């Protein structure tokens, strides 16, 4: 029986083995969405007829002896920031609903489909990906399957909620300052932000060109690796996509952690976080026997630089829309984007210079370290509509902005990061970031697979 807890690779094995039809798998996913999505609000479009038709085509190909791919019959969904042929790419906005339908799928969507996965629909997000909460005014808030009164996180909140709730086993999201890792941690799923340039962004609406990334969500490490293997690699349609061949991570999963040099990221990454979050990092470190601490300098300035670059690039990208349709923006994003257009150019250039310096400091860590550990989020999921600021100890921070305190300084310099979920019984999930040198996703998958096999991390259906 295929149910909400069945892994993507288990589904694919059974479809490929002729034990179940892809059409039945897809019909099951559509049924789960019909039952639960009214409560979660993860989907903004469900492509029922198209998904069933695609699944039937796949079943016919199998019957004819063709190989439909390693993800045969696996249902997946994509953040509505991705182009999906025939749909207007909402990017979480009301304005983009007026755009003509996309004429082709984004590269990552097309590659998952080429691997046999079946696209089920498009998922909710913060407007234009500029937020950490998916409290979208136009399409409603996406809810956390572990507690529907709480945020799913953002901006890829629909992707995390749909995967955590067992509606689909795979999701696609994007991450500029933490938009895959933050919702993955708050909803208790695995989420990968690959190295900058490792996965094509072609057909994805930008937030900040300098560090927009595409990546997958899953509830099993092997599923995450299979999805990553399907989407990673060069793409001439994305000018910053690397031309170096991708290392297949599925083949790394059984290698264990022997020989990997693992350390804890100290300083900034141990402050202004809840006790249960720091305890989760400690549990992962203890399991890995990681005791050495490494530090990155000036992390608070790295966050500031990430904020300035994101604001300036997003402000520039949306300037025409802000001139002509400011009132149609989500109030959660409009005033921040308006402010972003007013930042002096010198601030942007200084932030880019700082980024170059900070990237070199991070590279120094990876001369003698393979993987470093840090919390993903500073606390568990806040309630939807939570006050604008929160007090942590004696310090008042932005409730939503602070969710990116530990993710922002890392995506800012393009490092690959895999967030693993810690879901204790009766508690809300938190996440731990596994961080490696550029293009060393293989090390992250080795560690994540080992932690999952040891029962240290897991992602149960919520």
């Amino acid at each position: 029986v295929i149910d909400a807890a069945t892994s993507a690779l288990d589904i694919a094995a059974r479809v490929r083995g002729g034990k179940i039809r892809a059409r039945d798998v897809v019909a099951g996913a559509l049924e789960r969405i019909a039952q639960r999505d009214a409560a979660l609000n993860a989907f903004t479009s469900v492509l029922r007829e198209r998904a069933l038709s695609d699944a039937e085509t796949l079943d016919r190909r199998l019957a004819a002896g063709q190989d439909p791919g390693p993800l045969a019959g696996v249902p997946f969904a994509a953040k509505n920031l991705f182009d999906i042929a025939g749909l207007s790419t909402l990017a979480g906005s009301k304005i983009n609903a007026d755009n003509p339908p996309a004429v082709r799928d984004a590269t990552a969507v097309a590659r998952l489909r080429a691997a046999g996965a079946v696209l089920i629909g498009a998922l909710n997000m913060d407007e234009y990906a500029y937020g950490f909460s998916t409290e979208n005014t136009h399409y409603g808030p996406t809810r956390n399957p572990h507690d529907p009164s709480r945020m799913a996180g953002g901006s890829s909140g629909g992707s995390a909620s749909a995967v955590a709730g067992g509606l689909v086993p795979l999701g696609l999201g994007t991450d500029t300052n933490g938009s895959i890792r933050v919702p993955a941690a708050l909803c208790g799923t695995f989420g990968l932000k690959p190295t900058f340039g490792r996965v094509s962004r072609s057909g994805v609406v930008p937030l900040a060109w300098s560090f927009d990334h595409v990546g997958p969500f899953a509830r099993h490490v092997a599923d995450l690796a299979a999805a990553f293997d399907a989407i990673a690699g060069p793409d001439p349609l994305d000018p910053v996509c690397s031309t170096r061949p991708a290392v297949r991570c599925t083949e790394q999963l059984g290698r264990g952690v022997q020989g990997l040099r693992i350390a804890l990221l100290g300083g900034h990454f141990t402050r202004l976080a809840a006790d249960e979050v720091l305890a989760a990092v400690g549990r992962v470190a203890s399991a890995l026997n990681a005791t050495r601490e490494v530090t990155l300098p000036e992390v608070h300035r790295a966050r500031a630089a990430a904020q300035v670059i994101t604001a300036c690039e997003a402000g520039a990208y949306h300037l025409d829309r802000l001139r002509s349709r400011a009132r149609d923006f989500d109030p959660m994003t409009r005033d921040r984007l308006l402010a972003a257009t007013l930042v002096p150019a010198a601030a942007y250039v200084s932030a880019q210079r700082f980024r170059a310096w900070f990237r070199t400091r991070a590279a120094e860590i990876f001369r003698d370290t393979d993987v470093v550990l840090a919390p993903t989020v500073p606390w568990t999921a806040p309630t939807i509509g939570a006050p604008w600021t929160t007090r942590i100890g004696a310090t008042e921070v932005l409730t939503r902005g602070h969710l990116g305190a530990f993710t922002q300084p890392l995506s800012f310099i393009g490092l690959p990061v895999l967030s693993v979920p810690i879901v204790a019984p009766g508690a809300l999930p938190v996440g731990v970031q596994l961080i490696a040198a550029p293009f060393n996703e293989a090390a992250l998958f080795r560690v994540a697979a080992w932690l999952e096999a040891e029962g240290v991390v897991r992602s149960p259906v919520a």
Partner: protein
Amino acid sequence: VERLGSDVGLTIAPESRAAVAQHLTALLAAARLIDEFPIPDAEPAPHFEP
């Protein structure tokens, strides 16, 4: 905020001005944090290989 907005062709609605000013203040504080740090030998131009 009203004048700066007008300089880049934006009309910032009166009800938005206080919030925009607050966000701009935060961004300028972030910019100041970077300016206060002397960055040695950092090249901001993208790597270019013809």
